[in-house]
């Protein structure tokens, strides 16, 4: 009785099920063909191709920092591919995490799933780094962050994580010293954006301020647009310096709100705000005089980085390197130096094991790691907006007058 409707129901279901199967098989065939084409006899002299992953914000509010880093990776890769002595070529696979912790694992998985990928430059932000690294560690895939500065990241037991930037403990201590001895702040308002990065930095600064006997108020505010009542709160606090631990879109609005209310104390932020977008979004008049600390020098004014700057401009159609561009360039070159040593039989495991002993000169600093994955030694620089331009005042140590 029920026999008649049943075949009617199953038949379309079966075709539906079969079609994706066919597509899948065809897809595999295509991928297989593509793989042999790349791996075996490609047109650049049969060189082996390695893939290098990139994870960072390529869209969203803070995309500029991710783009800066990506362009640095691109510069290094273009330069390396032009090197005839290398037995391999490199290709970048970018994965956008929007700088958001919750997007991190998806972005990381996308890279992990690609078997030809040997190492990753990134993640760029600390939040996604924390959420992505367990996956990288599990997969044994090396990831070298150009910029994730949260201090705790190297203490969480990740086995494949390195960074070429100093953790915020270094930046925070230097920033606190700068506030105490150069700004000579009597009271500091330490405000963070409650992110992985922001709380790490504000914590480090506050420890430094305690040691220097500078009183401070701690406060946190999730990223928002309206900093008017926050500005009123800061002014009521009577602090003569504000340090914002967060990223440039919010630092710009906070600065705008504070200056709009006639706040005349010092306004500072960290490496997450070290981009010209800050000046643009705050307005040149408001941004004037604002200070930014960064464990990064400005490649554009560093004579020893001139060759890098020239190459970067060539590759990125005239753009100047931004914050983290140099670090990303160094991270890529460090990975490439390991690949060069391993030749054409590198695999994830050998790349990861060999990376710990990297020791090479970079454009931002000497690239040599501690056992936990932190880069050895680092200088913190202070930037200031002068006449609408971000200018380097110098390393904190040299700004402190005895």
């Amino acid at each position, binding site marked *: 009785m029920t026999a008649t409707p049943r075949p009617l129901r199953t038949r379309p279901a079966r075709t539906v099920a079969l079609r994706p199967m066919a597509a899948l098989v065809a897809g595999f065939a295509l991928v297989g063909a593509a793989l042999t084409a790349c791996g075996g006899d490609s047109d650049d002299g049969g060189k082996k191709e390695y893939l290098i992953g990139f994870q960072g914000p390529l869209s969203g*509010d803070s995309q500029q920092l991710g783009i800066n880093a990506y362009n640095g990776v691109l510069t290094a890769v273009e330069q390396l591919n032009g090197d005839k002595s290398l037995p391999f070529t490199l290709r970048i696979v970018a994965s956008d995490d929007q700088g958001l912790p919750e997007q991190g694992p998806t972005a990381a998985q996308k890279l992990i799933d690609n078997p030809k990928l040997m190492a990753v430059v990134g993640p760029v932000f600390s939040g996604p780094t924390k959420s992505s690294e367990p996956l990288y560690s599990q997969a044994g895939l090396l990831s070298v962050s150009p910029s994730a500065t949260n201090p705790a990241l190297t203490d969480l037991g990740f086995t494949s994580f390195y960074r070429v930037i100093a953790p915020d403990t270094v930046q925070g201590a230097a920033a606190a010293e700068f506030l105490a001895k150069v700004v000579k702040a009597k009271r500091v308002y330490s405000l963070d954006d409650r992110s992985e990065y922001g709380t790490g930095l504000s914590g480090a600064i506050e420890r430094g301020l305690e040691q220097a006997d500078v009183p401070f108020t701690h406060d946190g505010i*999730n990223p*928002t647009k309206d900093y008017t*009542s926050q500005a*009123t709160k800061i002014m*009521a606090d009577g602090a003569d310096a504000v340090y914002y631990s967060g990223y440039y879109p919010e630092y710009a609005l906070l600065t*705008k709100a504070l200056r709009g209310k*006639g706040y005349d104390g010092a306004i500072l932020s960290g490496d997450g705000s070290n981009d010209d977008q800050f000046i*643009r979004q*705050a307005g040149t008049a408001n941004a004037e005089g604002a200070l930014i600390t960064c464990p990064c020098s400005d490649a554009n004014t560093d004579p020893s980085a001139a060759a890098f700057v020239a190459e970067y401009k060539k590759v990125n159609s005239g753009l100047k390197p931004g914050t983290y561009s140099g670090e990303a360039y160094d991270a890529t070159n460090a990975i490439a130096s390991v690949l060069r040593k391993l030749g054409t039989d590198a695999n994830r495991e050998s790349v990861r094991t060999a990376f710990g002993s990297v020791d090479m000169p970079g454009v931002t600093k000497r690239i040599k790691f501690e056992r936990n994955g932190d880069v050895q030694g680092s200088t913190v620089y202070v930037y200031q907006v002068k006449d609408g331009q971000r200018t380097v005042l110098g390393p904190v140590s040299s700004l402190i007058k005895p």
Partner: protein
Amino acid sequence: MGSAEQISQLAVDGLMVGALYAVIALGYTLVYGVLQLINFAHSEVFMLGAFGGLFACRALVPGDGATPAGLAAAGLVLVGLVAGAAAGGAAAYTLERCAYRPLRRRGAPRLAYLISAIGASLFAFNLAGKEFGRQSVPVPDLFANRTVVTVLGAEISTQSLVIAATALLMLLAVDHLVADTRLGLSIRAVAQDAECAGLMGVDVQRVIVVTFVLGGLLAGAGGFLYAMTFNASYTMGFVPGIKAFTAAVLGGIGNVRGAVLGGLLLGLVESFGGYLFDASYKNVIAFTVLVGVLLVRPSGLLGTRLGRPA
């Protein structure tokens, strides 16, 4: 709580943001009045207005970096407002034409309007993100922003003054228009009973279009004012849109003066709440107040029984 100075400063901050909420809330309330429909794409009208004003100003501000002063500054603000309003009005008209009218013609159920509005909203802000970039964009400095007057210790900047004055003028104009003009009479007639209004010779379709455009003009100008303080970006509409909708409900949706009252009240609650507790609790406090008010007065502060939808 701090001194009297801080109290008045917080009140000024709250009223300024509240005035902006009120301006946007009018768009929700007017459309709701005539159609009994929440126009969820209204926040994108606001965003497009902000960009309209911004581009007009950017084209006119001299590139030498000098901040305009005096008449030039006033003129530029006016140009920005008009351009913002025009962009907002045009966006609202297009929205009504493309996302709502076809549905109304076919007698679609309420839910279809909601989906259509959300779709239009997603479309508009993604298009804006693609066309105008994903970074926040500031409105160029149109005047030197300094403290002009001090009221009870609260420092009021040029910018706050411009925002407050413009918002106040717009609110008064709308109130006058709805209460005292022939057009306002037909809007109210349609709001009460569209079918009867139509039988009495009111062009219902025209009233609906005019209502949308009116809301659009206000939201567009409001968007420009908002962008002067908080920068413009493709996602800027969402939060103020929700807040303004809240303000409209708080005051009694469908009621023009209620929207104004709701907006100002919400601004004040946010400002004081953010100060007293923690800035991150701002929205929690604002919505707690909303729920509290609705429990006591389900139709909002000035809300009354509504008529039949068009």
